[in-house]
């Protein structure tokens, strides 16, 4: 019987090497796989390229990973937030690279990687500085930019419910980029708030089919960045 369950977050991330490209699910604090991120801090892989919509909050989760000097480059759409200090400081000091991608283009590039589409055209960012250096082309009288797929070696994902085949459901807007990242990474590692037996998720309700998932770790009662920040916590 196929069983993708992994006993701990530490074991789940243990083979992420230095230099890896890692997608991290979540939009701000919503859907952020905090326990997996903290396990990656403990594991210590460095020189990472991280793909996420943002750059983390406070000094926990993704922000803590960045603050710990493990991230060489961020690829994201919005590297600011009212509670993010870690990234801006490193960025202004020239100690971390940044590739800014419009949010919809970021999502579509990740999906394209999962779908075997090496490139596509989008109207987004035409006529802006983010179009510089990009191929443009006209279709039916309108200008579009060519964008390439965006793949990763690993994805770190938080879901609501998983089964041992890696079938997943998410909670509300905690879904965001996660189903796309599951498709686009060579190895997809998921922390599930609930792990249920095979057959216990309605096949019509599964959002991410298990074929896109490699490892599942149950993390009941996960912490939430907003709560950690409100409590003044930091991870290091």
């Amino acid at each position: 019987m196929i069983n993708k369950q992994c006993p701990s977050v530490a074991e789940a991330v243990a083979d992420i090497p230095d230099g890896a490209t890692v997608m991290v699910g979540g939009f701000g604090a919503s859907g952020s796989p905090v326990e997996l991120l903290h396990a990656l801090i403990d594991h210590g892989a460095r020189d990472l390229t991280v793909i996420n919509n943002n750059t983390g909050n406070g000094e926990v989760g993704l922000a803590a990973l960045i603050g710990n000097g493990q991230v060489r480059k961020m690829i994201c759409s919005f590297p600011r937030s009212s509670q993010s200090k870690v990234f801006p400081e490193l960025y202004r000091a020239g100690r971390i690279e940044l590739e800014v991608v419009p949010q919809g283009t970021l999502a579509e590039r990740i999906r394209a990687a999962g779908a075997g589409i090496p490139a596509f055209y989008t109207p987004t960012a035409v006529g802006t500085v983010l179009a510089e250096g990009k191929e443009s082309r006209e279709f039916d009288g309108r200008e579009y930019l060519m964008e390439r797929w965006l793949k990763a070696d690993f994805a770190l994902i938080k879901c609501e419910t998983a089964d041992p085949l890696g079938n997943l459901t998410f909670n509300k807007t905690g879904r965001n980029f996660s189903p796309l990242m599951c498709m686009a990474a060579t190895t997809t590692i998921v922390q599930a708030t609930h792990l249920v037996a095979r057959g216990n998720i309605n096949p019509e309700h599964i959002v991410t089919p298990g074929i896109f998932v490699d490892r599942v770790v149950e993390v009941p009662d996960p912490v939430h960045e907003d709560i950690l920040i409100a409590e003044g916590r930091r991870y290091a």
Partner: protein
Amino acid sequence: MSHGWTREQMAARAAHDIPDGAYVNLGIGIPELVTQFVPEGREFIYHTENGMLGMGPPPTEDERDLDLMNAGKKYVTELPGAVYFHHADSFSMIRGGHIDVCVLGTMQVAENGDIANWSTGAPDAIPAVGGAMDLVQGVEKIYVITQHTTKTGEPKLVGRCSYPLTGAGVVSRIFTDLAVVDVTPDGFQVVELAPGVDFDEVQQKTGAPIRPPA
């Protein structure tokens, strides 16, 4: 004597121009006030680009779900008929032309419909674009709500944007504290003046030629 529109009145005036049944995406700031001024007999469905249609008002402490946020990372609620989806589907709604109206704030908007609302271009600014460039290219009608001038009195309606563009030639209509202004092939056109505002004041505070109401 009243002079011009308040933030709430600007939002109400914008809401007045949104048709019944519209799918609407609201930017952060004054645009968020639109939800409070939906005209009697109309229903708008709110899209938030982080993966939801049918977004409702902020939750009470008890209602709050830590995973349920809007694109501005504020906690929100779901209304009956709401639906969740992933980011690629969400931006398919935007890029594919399925959202009817997007109401944005701005730093500058130009007489040719260019909008600049994501970056000052300052050397130490951290570029953060979010979904703004997707929205202005994908949504059929781009409405802007903005004060007519900056806090220091500089025009926000200009001949050409000096800040980096979010999109070129995309804005349809602008709701300011002084007037409702259309972007036309011939430039700015006042559609309506706010109470107590005369056209000369609008022209004087606009950084490009503007035509009086017909």
